[in-house]
């Protein structure tokens, strides 16, 4: 008779079945988790996943960020779902697995969800996945190397984009010149320029003009 194993409910949320299959295969074949009896379930959209979470008893959720937009869906992205889980079921550990490499989105996700694990799909191998799960289970958090590097670079501290930044970006997008920005944000021109420089850092753009910055901000949904 085998020792009775501890049950662990895992929910995989990804729109690609093959990926979820991959996760399942990797996790179930991992030898280090012999003491655990994984109960792995899958959900290929956020609404369905949220329903499962509300009724289930999951310890760990593997969460993708991008989902195809469905007209009837109430929860459009993994990020929204993550925030919901975090606020309503803070005990559930969240591992984000995404193809996104956009610094800004990553920072946003980090600050909004504060996930227990964060991996970029592109750099993730089966070994890393197992390692991440292990870390999340026993000593969270675990961030993939790219994310760790990003955090270490120190951009993170500056990365929060507040109301003033949004107003500035909005005005710039309307064609307002930088020197006119103080009228709208109640800051000195110097402060405005500093903030603009910081925004450029956050969005990872270089150069003088506003074009690249605005493009990036628009891409990231700030304008």
């Amino acid at each position, binding site marked *: 008779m085998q020792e009775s194993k501890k049950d662990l409910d895992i929910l995989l949320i*990804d*729109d*690609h*079945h*093959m*990926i*979820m*299959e*991959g*996760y399942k*295969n*990797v996790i179930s*074949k991992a030898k280090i988790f012999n003491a655990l009896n994984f109960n792995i379930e899958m959900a290929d959209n956020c609404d369905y996943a949220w329903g499962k979470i509300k009724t289930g008893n999951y310890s760990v959720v593997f969460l993708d960020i*991008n989902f*195809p937009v469905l007209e009837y869906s109430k929860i459009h992205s993994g990020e929204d779902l993550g925030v919901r889980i975090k606020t309503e079921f803070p005990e559930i550990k969240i591992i984000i697995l995404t*193809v996104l490499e956009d610094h800004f989105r990553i920072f946003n996700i980090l600050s909004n969800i504060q996930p227990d694990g964060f991996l970029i*799909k*592109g750099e*993730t*191998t*089966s*070994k890393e*996945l197992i390692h991440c799960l292990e870390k999340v289970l026993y000593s969270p958090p675990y961030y993939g190397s790219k994310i760790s590097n990003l955090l270490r670079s120190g951009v993170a501290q500056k990365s929060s984009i507040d109301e003033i930044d949004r107003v500035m970006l909005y005005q710039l997008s309307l064609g307002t010149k930088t020197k006119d920005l103080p009228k709208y944000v109640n800051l000195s021109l110097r402060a405005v320029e500093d903030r603009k420089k910081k925004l450029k850092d956050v969005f990872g753009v270089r150069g003088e003009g506003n074009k690249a910055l605005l493009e990036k901000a628009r891409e990231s949904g700030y304008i």
Partner: protein
Amino acid sequence: MRTQYSFLLLFVLLLSLTSCKDNNQVRHKNSKPTLDEIFSDTTLNKTQKKQILDSAYSSISTIQNDSLKNDNLLEISYQYLMIKDSVKFLCSNSEARNIFFRIKDSARIAATYWDLGNFYQSSTKDSAYFYYTNAHRIYQNLGEEFNSARLLLNMALVQKNVKDYTGSEVTTIKAITLLKSLKKYKQLYSAYNNLGIIFNELQEYEKALENYKIALNYLEMSGREYLYPSLWNNIGVVYQNSGRHKEALANFQKAMNYNQNIKTTDPKMYAMILDNSAYVKLFSKDTIGIHKDFLEALEIRKNLNINDGITINQLHLAEYFLEKKDSVTAINYALATKELALKIQNTRDYLSSLKFLSNTVKDSALNYSQEYIKINDSLQKRERAVRNKFARIRFETEGYISETKRLNDRILQTSLISAGVILIIILLYIISNQRAKNKLIKQKQTANQEIYNLVIDQQKKFEEGRDTEKQYISRELHDGILGKLFGIRLNLDSLNEEDDSESKSERFKYIREIQKISDQIRLLSHRLNKTSLTNVNFETVLEELVKSQNAGKIKFHIEFKEAINWDTIDNNIKINIYRILQEAISNIHKHAKATEARIKFDNLNDQLIISIADNGIGFYPEKIKNGIGLSNIYARVKKIKGKINISSLGENRKGTTLKLTVPLS
């Protein structure tokens, strides 16, 4: 002073001869000897000339053609004047004038008046003045300044002869003004000579001398040297009248000595100078030989029948004999003068003789004085009457001139107004033309704008489509393919360690998945190719218009049979075709109840043929002609000079076919 007459006649003759020169050519056609030739033949005497003239006149009367007749008639009439045949002259003159009035030849009418003036000039001076005035008026209106000036001069001479000296002076000065600008020196000499005579008569001798000096100048410039004696004689008379006998005598001698043969070439002038110089000698008490001179002059004048000369000559002789204390002979000469002067109506000499007699014949002095006063009074009255008549003629002429001027002004005014009106009409035409042009340009611009907008819209739509496509491809690559690859990689990764048959088949499954991914990538690549920019032209716009109709039940097809070079077709045509197509499609949607509609474009012999056919219920085109949709189509077809033919119920019962033909050139 008598010299003036002969001079005037000479002058008239000269001008008439010059005016005849034009006529020569007409007559040469008839190859007959011209009248000029005949009359320049000095061998002919007066009777011979008259015979020739009479035959010419009678032959010319038979000619019906006015234009042939008129020139010759004028010449014949003039020649009658020259040979002093009054009846024939007046007859032919008035006949000629009637013809010229009929053919409205004002210049020749004036010429006939001129002849008439010359005719009356020695007898009825007021008539002469009247006809000269008429002629002058016509020449003035015609703008013939030289003739106009010459007639003024004639008028001035007539005025001087009737002792209207002030009037004559005014007229002469008018003539001078014209002549100076024309540089006619001979006439200018004549005018200043006239002024000299006038001032002499008015006893303003200094002024008279001044004018004679000017006359002398012009005479020199004109080169008519034969007139010198006459002028010097006149100057001598002025000196004599002002009591400067020495100068007077000097001038008379100059006149006499100028031409050695004066006695034979100009006996009249010779007699005058001889008489005058003898008379001046009488005053300076140098009486030797003057009796002989007086008698020689008198003899010449009697021979030549110069009555005016005879009377004055006899008066001079009377004074001579009075000086010589031979009062009987003196009185006899004075009485002879009185008799002759009365006979020839020479009032001046008549008065002089009366004056002489009243002074000399002591016993009948009172009678002569009374007679003198009576004659003098009536003379003055008569002169005043003549002057008044002249003034009236002048006034009437001036009235006529001012009337003509008024008419001319009115004509000018009318023509100015009509010119203005015409100008305004032209301007209005230009403006409206320009407006129409601008309208056309504007229309063209709007058409260009509309086409441009259509193409831009289409381009935008294409670009939007391409953007969504790009987004789709990007997401597909990023999420779909990358995700799937990640899944496969993860799975294969987990299967890596295993080597059982199950794992092998699993791996095979993922290899198949990779196969699928490569298919998917190929598909995406295809789509990427398709989205690469399509060239948007009018054809694309039309295609899109038709394709966009396919959402409903009706299937729309569009077909271009020939390649149509839309770039060369006027935008106005294109936009109207587009609108017509829109209207037709809308009609099919609204009314046709069709299931299919076919739109065909064909290019045939510089004509665009468009057919829009549906398989709907059809209609009676002749009955629903006035529907808004159809009338819009008709209006647009008309705008692009096209033709439209609608065949529907009545001809074929299968739907409706619109056939539109648009000329492209």
